[in-house]
């Protein structure tokens, strides 16, 4: 029995948060009938149907294991939900998509993030969904992109939390409006990766465990210096402490928002939708499929000619019609 994708999509569009769990079940399913309904769902929440880009702010939160992402997220949730000591101006609804690495041997995975995030279970304005990245590289689960965009129609904020550094933030950057990379004091990896150009420059850098004092301050200084030498002096580097009482979290929430206000969301998401459609098509039909469209460049041109409000499944369908 398959859920009614169009109905779920319409409920999300009307900002009915209770439609979210069922929508996610559907989007994560790879059963053929469910894929069909997923496409219907995405059509209902596409910019074309909404009349604009989905209003939710897509925030990528990524960093190495142990950097303190879950504690930071707990503190951010308190700010966003207006339950922090230093609360933000208004209560905002938040969905968190926590992506965990999987055990490769058995295919199973332990999704432990939920237990580490502190929030009020009775609060209907927060949703946390854990998924396994599966065999995919790059840090995201198969359905994360679609899920993030669908939820952005209903929630004020959609956080995509991934583990890793150097690779993970690349794919997150394709989905999120704002990418924050989280590092703990004294961890040299990020600094080296930045200098070596292995990782892209994030929109916001966060140094956790500010309560450690000197070492946190000097990590922040080193990162700022590295950014300056890379010509990105404007990238904010913040220090936060999630220990009680938390510090710097309100400033971080502000920095994320400022970044969003400064970028062209439509252009960024449109580019991402086209890239996602192309890679989904290539995954399904291979290089042969691309040749059938006259090569990658022609395929890109074909996508550029489409309604900029179409969601990924509709764009994939366009490409598929091109080889039919």
């Amino acid at each position, binding site marked *: *029995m*398959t*859920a009614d994708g169009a109905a779920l999509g319409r*409920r999300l569009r009307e900002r009915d948060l*209770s*439609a*979210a*769990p*069922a929508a*996610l*079940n*559907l989007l*994560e*399913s*790879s*059963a053929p009938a*469910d894929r069909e309904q997923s496409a219907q769902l995405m059509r209902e929440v596409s910019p074309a149907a909404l009349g604009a880009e989905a209003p939710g702010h897509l925030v990528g939160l990524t960093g190495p294991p142990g950097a303190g992402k879950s504690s930071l997220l707990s503190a951010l949730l308190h700010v966003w939900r207006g339950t922090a000591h230093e609360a933000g101006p208004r209560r905002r609804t938040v969905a968190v998509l926590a992506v965990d690495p999987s*055990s490769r*041997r*058995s*295919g*199973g*995975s*332990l*999704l*432990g993030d*939920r*237990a*580490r995030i*502190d929030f009020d*279970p*009775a609060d209907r304005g927060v*949703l*946390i*969904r*854990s*998924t*396994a990245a599966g065999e995919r590289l790059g840090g995201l689960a198969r359905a994360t992109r679609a899920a993030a965009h669908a939820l952005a129609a209903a929630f004020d904020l959609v956080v995509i939390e991934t583990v890793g550094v150097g690779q993970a933030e690349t794919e997150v950057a394709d989905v999120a409006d704002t990418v924050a990379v989280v590092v703990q004091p004294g961890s040299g990896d990020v600094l080296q990766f930045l200098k070596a150009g292995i990782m892209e420059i994030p929109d916001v850098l966060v140094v956790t465990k500010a309560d450690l004092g000197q070492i946190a301050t000097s990590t922040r200084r080193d990162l700022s210096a590295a950014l300056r030498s890379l010509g990105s002096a404007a990238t904010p580097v913040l220090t936060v402490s999630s*220990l*009680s*009482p938390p510090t710097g979290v309100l400033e971080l929430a502000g920095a994320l928002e400022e970044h969003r206000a400064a970028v062209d969301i439509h252009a960024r998401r449109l580019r991402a939708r086209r890239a996602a459609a192309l890679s989904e098509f290539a995954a399904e039909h291979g290089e042969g499929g691309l040749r059938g469209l006259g090569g990658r460049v022609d395929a890109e041109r074909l996508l550029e000619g489409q309604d900029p409000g179409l969601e990924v499944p509709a764009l994939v369908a366009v490409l598929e019609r091109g080889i039919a």
Partner: protein
Amino acid sequence: MMRTYAGHSTAKASNELYRRNLQKGQTGLSIAFDLPTQTGYDADDELARGEVGKVGVPIAHRGDMAALMDGIPLGEMNTSMTINATAAWLLALYIVVAEEQGVSQDQLQGTTQNDIIKEFLARGTYAFPPAPSMRLIADMIAYTVEHVPKWNPINICSYHLQEAGATPVQEIAYAMSNAIAVLDAARERVGGRGQDVMEQVFGRISFFVNAGVRFIEEHAKLRTMAILWEELGRERYGVADPRHLRFRYGVQVNSLGLTEAQPENNVQRIVLEALAVTLGRDARARAIQLPAWNEALGLPRPWDQQWSLRIQQVLAFETDILEYPDIFEGSKVMEGLVAELLKGAREEMAVVAEHGGAVEAVPYMKAALVDSHRERIRRIESGEQIVVGQNRFSESEDSPLTADAEGGILVVDPALEAEQIEAVSRWRAGRDQADVDAALAALADSARGGADTNLMTATIAAARAGATTGEWSQTLREVFGSYRAPTGVGEAASTPPDGELSELRGEVSRLQEKLGRRPKILVGKPGLDGHSNGAEQIAVRARDSGMDVVYEGIRLTPAQIAASALQEGVHVIGLSILSGSHRELIPAVIDALHEAGVTAPVVVGGIIPDQDVPLLEQAGVAAVYTPKDFDITRIMRDIVELVDSDAGRAALAGNGSLASGPA
């Protein structure tokens, strides 16, 4: 010293039990507190539901403590309290009640368990984050050394580590590393008062250890600990007085190895384990408490505890065990065993030190314990490790011991919880609220004050003013923040796939095709019971079977479980309870699930007496697993079948239970 670990229902009922036990020849008290008291909640807190008076006595304020100790002369008593996160509070109540009896605090003798690291690792009854928890311990040590000099402020527990699956090497190494963390914290606090005080502090640290059925090796373990302890005292803390250097320990023998199947066999296990801690005089326990034969079935009754006390009495008064000097002196075998354990323990202690000490190494140690336990279960499943009556010689005649209506265990009257809730509100109404408010405000100030203010002073004042356990804890939670300990499951190595597990993975893949998504299971523990070993092993094996596992850990409310099940879109929910609160909590969780519109089936594991199974099934539980179901792969197979048939049922009903949410 002979004790039985006891307490249940109410302060009054426990007081009667203590008095009876003292008449039977018991020479000290060992108080078991209920989980709300251990974790700092009053009976009327949402989290206390179903747990009040279950695994011990509820003590909410000085009135309860006075009732508990009524007619027992505290000046003559040696009282051991199994209390950790809230140890400072319970000691304060004890001091205030002694005052009321006209006994000054410097007369008091006893022990507060007060070991928080093992709570993070194994037992789960913590209340505050690691740093403030360590501060509370250091405060208590500093206070008692000066004002309650005969009190043992902390018992370093390796007991619970073995229950969580520790090997002898891990048990030794983690206990010693834990002691180092505590002593270092104490040295910072009292170091300025001179080496004499530090010697006294060292001398007041005692241990609470475990003894398993491999009793020769277990005895070697204790000799090893004595050697390391003395070495630590001399080298790290400069202790010279031999009296202070002596390794003092109490013991509760192993419960992990006690079986639900053929529970009468547990009696001989307990006897043999008692030998481990008594045979050689050089490493003999100072205080022994033995578990009851029916622990794996439910709560022991007074008669069961009497049986355990009699075991000790036979050992002490009928055998010749106490008549000889150390019988292992000169034994090559014993020396060899000790040398081996010393080497292993030193290496493991070095690893913990590399992590920055026991507090920082909690995630490392937790993961190592989950891994050891996983290996232990694998050996039992495969038959490499024989457990008589469980995986070998399991044929049995019917047991007359469990033939009575209640199945040979104690059943706590559920009405007691309501009475205790009422009693707490009566207490609150009857006290001088302004006094309490002022005392709690002073406590909060003292907590914010940092390490130079000793929290004991404000804590004793709050006890005197009539504050409750929940109020004391909540005041500190607000200053210190809340905390969730690492679960250790994420890092656990995978189970080597035998034929059965490989086959199961195939079934999981087929089920994934059918569902469209990988089968997803939620595993968690409702209520305050922190014994998470079973739930952790289920989570790890579910992952190894190929499922997606949302592991939620301990201390969950029904609302939390329902929200998680809904948001995560799980296909099945696995709940674990060992504290006896399943009769209240499981139906409450199922109600919450229904309310949230979740129809995924629920399975329950834990110490569930046979006679409670129908009640749970009636509430809507699909399957119940108890300690006799030791084959976890088999449980996984059941769960896969359950999800499969649930998916089929949902499809037939035309209602994709998991694909649709509430409108």
